[in-house]
């Protein structure tokens, strides 16, 4: 199936979960990323349940924070 990941067209065997997609995208620390699926920001607890389907749009970004 074809989906869009961070603006790029990606072809994957599917359907698959967000958690599996992050593995396929070689995200080393999935607990440190935020995911937006079809415009909705997901809770981390949804990563294992939320299915990605053909034509979906997924954005993921690493957490950015720190302290003085």
């Amino acid at each position, binding site marked *: 199936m074809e989906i869009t990941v*961070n*603006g790029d067209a990606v072809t994957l065997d599917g359907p698959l979960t967000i958690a599996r997609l992050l593995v396929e995208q070689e995200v*080393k*620390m999935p607990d*440190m990323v*935020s995911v*937006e699926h079809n415009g909705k*920001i997901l809770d981390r607890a949804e990563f294992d349940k939320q299915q990605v389907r053909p034509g979906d749009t997924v*954005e993921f*970004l*690493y*957490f*950015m*924070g*720190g*302290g*003085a």
Partner: protein
Amino acid sequence: MRPVRELQLLTIPRNIVDAMIEHAHRCAPQEACGVLSGSDGRVRSVYPMTNADASSEHFSLVPREQFDVARKIRAEGQEMLAVYHSHPATPARPSPEDIRLGVAPGIVHVIVSLADQNKPAVKAFLIEDGKAAETSVRITNEDEDNVSTT
């Protein structure tokens, strides 16, 4: 596009440095934060953002803002080069928390220190595998680049 890790240099126009310092002063005593975009290690745009922690000792970007800025950067044919934040009262060097949370691959961490109010300091670091290495910063005059502040 060549990554900063390879170039070992981040080039920032003077007006963007001034915008980061002004943002840091405006947010003090809380930490300011935002994103720098460009290409090939040359910063073209600055995106001042909300500190979700609203704290003088911590910062984190708001995910909704982060996604929106990432899309805007992509639409402009640029890439996210750096995240910046201020240290209102401490030097421009990564704190243990900066190092622990500096997990975004290839992203430069720019720190604006207001410890010396009369002479703010701006330094850049690459943080990988729990280690921080300073990256050179070249500040250019505004007329050397066609840049924008957002």
